């Protein structure tokens, strides 16, 4: 349903897949090069548009990398609000994925229900940040918009509506529906050893029983709110679905916790000067897994190098080991189970 240009060249024996070659490069734009041509402050808006689905996490990771390089201390309130927006984008991304996944196995009504629940989250984004998808609220040194008390109350109210809708429609379907189980249980197996060996990230890794999540490192305000990764041990498409579904609930809890713990104070500090000479690496957890930013400053307002390593790129090798041996009809389901984001991968 979501037409992203990736080309998987399959080799078949009757209905069984025996070999697969991925061909990418249809939407390569050259964002990393443009990141060297633009001033470093403008890059925040450029990296947000690497991927429109997890745009806030990209901006957050880039801002934190530059702040670390320039040794800027961000006000605590800004870190808490950044956490809220990054978790909101995780909920909307997971619901979007769940909808598309349902569509891939022909379950049209679940697709519609997921996207219906997702609109509540987008409403919250629009209310707090001013736009549904690409928010452009993170800047170097903090954030641009505050979430005041009234707004926080409204967010809590909408999140309880959201939970009610999820509890009544999406969750019982995913947990109990026999069609979903027949299409996903035991399909696209990836063992714990393989996942580690091939460098899988995000829900694919956690669906295979490895408790690794970059949020454990405590960037933004995850240290204050506390965080435990969600792990399922089966390593099939169903386990990945359950990991993502449980993460939706967990993200909701994290937002509520962050809103209640949020200290008063400024939302940004003025950052003067340019990034000094030096390198910095920063990691963050996107809805799809770990994203790594590498920046190299040279004392001027342009960066020497901006390098991004996105989660889908890391998840393509695991996909290539899952596909051989499966039925042709399972290819869309298994491919979607890694939540591919081609716009991220090719940049």
């Amino acid at each position, binding site marked *: *349903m979501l*037409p992203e240009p990736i080309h998987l060249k399959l080799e078949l024996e009757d209905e069984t897949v025996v070999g697969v070659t991925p061909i990418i490069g249809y*939407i390569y*734009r*050259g964002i990393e090069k*443009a990141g060297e041509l*633009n001033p470093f402050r403008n890059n925040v808006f450029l990296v947000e548009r690497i991927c*429109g689905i997890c745009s806030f996490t990209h901006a957050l990771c880039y801002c934190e990398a530059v702040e670390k390089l320039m040794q800027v201390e961000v006000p605590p309130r800004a870190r808490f609000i950044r956490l809220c927006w990054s978790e909101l984008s995780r909920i909307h991304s997971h619901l979007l994925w769940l909808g598309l996944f349902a569509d891939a196995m022909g379950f049209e009504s679940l697709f519609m229900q997921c996207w219906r629940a997702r*609109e509540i989250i987008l409403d919250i984004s629009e209310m707090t940040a001013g736009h549904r998808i690409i928010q452009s609220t993170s800047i170097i040194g903090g954030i641009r918009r505050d979430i005041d008390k009234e707004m926080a109350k409204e967010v809590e109210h909408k999140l309880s509506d959201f939970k009610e809708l999820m509890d009544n429609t999406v969750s019982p379907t995913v947990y109990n529906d026999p069609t979903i189980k027949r299409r996903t249980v035991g399909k696209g197996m990836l063992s714990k050893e393989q996942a580690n060996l091939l460098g899988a990230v995000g829900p694919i890794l956690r669906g295979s029983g490895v408790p690794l999540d970059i949020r454990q490192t405590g960037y933004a305000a995850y240290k204050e709110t506390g965080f435990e990764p969600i792990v399922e041990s089966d390593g099939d498409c169903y386990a990945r679905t359950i990991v993502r579904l449980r993460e939706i609930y967990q993200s909701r809890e994290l937002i509520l916790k962050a809103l209640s713990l949020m200290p008063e104070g400024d939302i940004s500090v003025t950052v003067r000067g340019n990034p000094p000479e030096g390198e910095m690496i920063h990691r963050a957890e996107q809805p799809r897994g770990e994203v790594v930013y590498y920046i190299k400053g040279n004392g001027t307002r342009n960066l020497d190098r901006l390098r991004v390593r996105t989660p889908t790129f890391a998840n393509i090798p695991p996909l290539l080991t899952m596909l051989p041996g499966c039925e042709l009809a399972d290819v869309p389901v298994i491919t979607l189970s890694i939540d591919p984001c081609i*716009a991220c991968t090719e940049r």
Partner: protein
Amino acid sequence: MSILTKSRIKSPWLLHYDCGGCNGCDIEVLAALTPIYDIERFGIVNIGNPKHADVLLVTGPVNHRNKRVLRNLYEQMPEPKLVIAVGTCACTGGIFYNCPNTLGGIDKIIPVDVYIPGCAVRPEAIIDAVVIALGKLKEYKG
């Protein structure tokens, strides 16, 4: 107005092609199909076959690799055909204006009927653009 034109306006079929966007506009095109906006109630259907399509929705700045694909899709669509550039990138190249691999704006490759600015565009804007584009169909004699 011939009966063919009349029925075309009553139920236009969309073809959506992502030629290098960031997914932001693509998910808004999809959001326009789902319960809150639900453009299917106007008879608008999203399909994957250019030979059945009346309206081509294009997102993203076109690049050197997929300009051939875009032209190919456009040429496969039957007359009368409408092209809508969804989002600022598709209109002018937008924020990717200085990226080395983009051409900037799909109107360098195919003729465009309606431009929707915005990053990312809202579903209401997409619905509005489809309605404006269908107004153009009324003048079509064929």
